[in-house]
Every structure is written in structure tokens, then in C-alpha cells.
């Protein structure tokens, strides 16, 4: 289907363009499914990222754990979530970052928590 047909507000679908754009970033994150790669990431994050040929922009987004930016650069959440296993980040905080909201506001307004 055309990308134009799938334009739903505030909803980046992982389409052809995003998949192509984010391939290296996602491949780096996918490989964190192996313990030896997690160790390498922890030991020297930028050296690990360089193995995958990430751009400075991509590396900065990973270094900052900027979830919104990683998705903008083509990262798919299911892959980049593996970064959150390195220095544990709750899913609700990642969600709040995507939404550009304060965590408490996100819990209340989006998830209906009190």
C-alpha cells in the first residue's frame, strides 16, 4: 500500500522508508539480544556503535537514550527496547518520552492511572 494511505496522526508505522532508514540502528539493537554484545556495549558504548557504522546523529540519540529521536531516525521500538535492558528503563517512561509528556501526566492522561 502507499505510504499516503497509512497516514494516521501521531502514529509512525514501520513502513518501507523507516525500515530502510533505521536498518543499522535496529541491527545494532537487535544484536543486544546476545550477552557478549551487551558486555561490549557496556564496556565501550561508542566502540560498539561504530561496529554498525552508525551516524553521529544516531550515536547521539543512543547515547542520550532519546527514544523519540531513535524512532524518528527509523528505530523500531521492539528492537531499541533492548537498549533499555542495558540500563533498565520502565516502559512507561519510554512511552512518556515518545509522547513528549511528563511521566506522571502520561500515566494519568494516557493510561488512566491515579
Amino acid at each position, binding site marked *: *500500500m502507499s505510504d499516503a*494511505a*497509512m497516514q*494516521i*496522526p*501521531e*502514529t*509512525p*508505522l*514501520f*513502513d*518501507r522508508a523507516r*525500515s530502510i532508514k533505521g*536498518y543499522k540502528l*535496529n*541491527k545494532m*539493537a*537487535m544484536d*543486544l*539480544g*546476545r*550477552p557478549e554484545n*551487551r558486555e561490549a556495549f557496556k564496556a565501550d558504548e561508542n566502540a560498539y556503535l561504530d561496529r554498525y557504522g552508525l551516524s553521529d546523529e544516531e550515536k547521539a540519540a543512543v547515547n542520550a537514550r532519546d527514544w523519540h529521536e531513535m*524512532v524518528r531516525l527509523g528505530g*523500531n*521500538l*521492539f*528492537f531499541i*527496547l*533492548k537498549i*533499555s*535492558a*542495558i540500563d533498565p528503563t520502565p*516502559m*512507561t517512561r*519510554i*512511552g*512518556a518520552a*515518545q*509522547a*513528549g*509528556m511528563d511521566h506522571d501526566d*502520561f500515566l494519568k492522561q*494516557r*493510561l*488512566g*492511572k491515579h
Partner: protein
Amino acid sequence: MAKIIGGIGTSHVPSIGVALDKGLDGTPDWKPFFDGYIPGKEWMREAKPDIAVVIFNDHGNTFFLDRVPTFAVGVAESYTPVDEGWGARQIPTFEGAAELSWHFVDRLVEKHFDPLVCREIEVDHGLQVPMELFFGRPEHWPVKIVPIWVNTIQYPIPTPQRCWEMGKVLREAIESFPGDDRVVIMGTGGLSHQLQGSRAGFINREADEAWLDGIANDYEKYRGMSREDYVEQFGSEGAELIMWLVMRAAMDPKVELKHRHYYAPASLTGAGMVVLENAA
């Protein structure tokens, strides 16, 4: 021949598995969610299936973007949990119903489906969590499994109509499988959730409740919906619900809704289940 004894629709949220691993299932946040599954678990215990067919999606754990099968079927003797970044979860290995898997693959191809056939492959929470919700944490799983993967990650994902058609072939495969195995079909994923973009945290309780009511005997509208409709109503990741259609299509046109449960949010997701039996 083998017999379909029921159809399950259920969420497979990873944090459910984490809650079980950490023993959080009795905490105020989680107890209402898990309590709602007790009737489903009891139904399963009494139904005594031999085989569970589990339709789920991988979440960037087993398949990378180097190769993305729209549909894949496991034909392995056994399946172990995959490392999702935290180390593989300590749950028992799943035994494969390899004969039924191969038979299903034969039927699929005869009916012009082209599945990826997987002889050696690991499974992520998409399969693990539904098994734990309905079978608990046994030392050995009481059923063998047939895993079916549906791509819901990279577009184009399959259409709801194609999922429905695969369910029809699944039924035919089970009912032409020699022996007297009792088979339960588990369609998994959803309900509404969105994990990416500024609409992250989107939950549509009204649409979820309507889905749980309608999937039994008012399913035509869901069958006819486009992928865009699913994303709009249930969120980008909530479109996983198309996998329940595989299960529903494998059941009779008229079914009995035996159990139903809804709870939101489980993590960022509207969560719940239905248990369906073919109407007598």
C-alpha cells in the same frame, strides 16, 4: 481425526511475563488482571487439550529485518525461549507437535499460501505469555505446540482477510489430521496499545470491550476492516488483533462465549481474553 475443542483470544504483553518472574501477580496493579484469567485456566484444565496452536508475532527477537516472513510455521521437535535482551527466561522448553505442523504446512501450500517453514527456531514472549496465562508454570507443559508467526512489525503486514483465510486452512488441517488429538487454538496479541510516536500510550477501552463482545458472534465487521482501521481503533501495535481472526475463522460460524476478561492498562496495553467453544 483431531478435534478443535476451543478457541482462545488473549493478550501477550511482555510485562505479564515479567510480573510472573518477579512474583508480582498478587500486587494491586496486577491481581485484577491475573484473577480474570482464573476461569480461563480452569476451562483449559478441564478441556485437556493435547496440542495448542499458537498464533503470534515475533517482536524483533527471533526475526530481524534481514528477512521478514509474512507467515511462518514451526515444524521443530522443540522450542526454547529466546533472549530478549535480559537473558532467556527460565521457563520449560516447549515440545513441538511436529507432525501436525508439517500437515498444516502441506495444506497451506495446497491452498496457495507460501509460509516460511522453520525447523530450528526460538520463541519470544508472544508465545510464552499466552501459554503461562492458560497453563500456569508447570514443570512440563501439558501440551505440544504448533507455533504460527504473523508479521505485524514491518509493513506491509498481512490483511485481516488473509489472516481469516489462513484460519480456514488451519481448521481443515486439524480436522484432516489422523488420530484423536484434542486441539486448542490460541490467537494472541493486543488489545489496544501504541508504543511509538506521540500517540504512545493510546488505549481505546471502548473499542477493546466491543472487540471482546463481538469477536464471538459479531465478527463480520472485524473481518472486513482494513489495516488502517485496526491501527486507528487499536493503535499501531494494537493491530496485532488481526491474529485473533486466524483463531476465529477456524471455529464454527456460531460459537459460545464461555469466558471473557478485560483489564487496562497492563503496562501500556488494554489486556484481556476470550474463551470460545463451537456452539453445540
